[in-house]
């Protein structure tokens, strides 16, 4: 029997190593990397703003609304404000939303022109107030 040459021994070693690598890689297995994502946003301010309106001289109030640069899908607000204590002396002030500037691509700050008291100056008692909730929905 001829003694194994150094070259033959090296080849055998390589074969063993390759075989071991193939044996490790053999189990058929697939893998996929998945990305999870979310954007957390703060709710719009729930405290709002206190707007003083002199109904004897002012019939239009322009409200500036700051928000994210997103498309606004709808704006809603009450049809009127009732200024008074709830009795027959209440002054009913209709509200109207004028064209919403930048509604298609809301670039903060956005502007909502709200006409309060569309019927013109109205008599009212000083210091009376009502809450007008404006809801802006965006995607």
């Amino acid at each position, binding site marked *: 029997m001829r003694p194994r040459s150094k070259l033959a021994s090296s080849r055998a070693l390589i074969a063993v190593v390759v075989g071991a690598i193939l044996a490790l890689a053999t189990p058929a*297995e*697939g893998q996929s990397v*998945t*990305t*999870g994502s*979310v954007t*957390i946003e703060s709710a719009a301010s729930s405290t709002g703003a206190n707007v003083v309106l002199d109904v004897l001289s002012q019939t239009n109030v322009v409200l500036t609304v700051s928000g994210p640069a997103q498309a606004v899908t709808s704006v809603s607000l009450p049809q009127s404000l009732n200024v008074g204590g709830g009795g027959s002396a209440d002054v009913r002030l209709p509200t109207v939303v004028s064209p919403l500037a930048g509604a298609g691509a809301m670039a903060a700050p956005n502007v909502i022109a709200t006409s309060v008291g569309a019927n013109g100056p109205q008599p009212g008692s000083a210091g009376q107030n009502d809450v007008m909730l404006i809801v802006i929905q965006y995607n």
Partner: protein
Amino acid sequence: MQKTNIYILATALAVTYAGAASAQSSSVTTNGTTTILRPVTITKTADLAFARVVKPTTGSGTVTLTASSDTVGVTGTGTLAAGTASRAKYTINGEGGQVVAVTVPASFDMSDGSSHTLTVTLSSDLSGGTVTLDQTIGTAGAAALNVGGSFPVSSTTTPAAYTGTFDVSVAYQ
């Protein structure tokens, strides 16, 4: 002459021994078998996107995207979901009729890159963590996999864009 006789005796003994060994031999037929399977692979067709979530104004809530729907469900005061969301979706391909074990991590973290994290608990639409590929052996098979998740959110959660990754792996069982 005496030397020649010794050689003859030795040869005769050798032949006799060889003949006895041949009479006691046996053989058996052994079958070699293997089943060649095409590799099992998993392909992602959609990431796990919760889209946009408005956090609660007070207290805490939960944001959930189930494995059976692309609609985000939220709980908590003032919590809202918006935008286009999607559960994670995959297609598993391999040998038809074979059972494939699917490994989905129990949870993973999404980070805003500024040390704030959200831990998402994952859930899949598989029962028992396995799925059987359609078709039969000899034909390519496939199966669908969906993964959803949920995470808590509170009024103190830092508003930001969070992202994270997780691995889903498959192997023949």
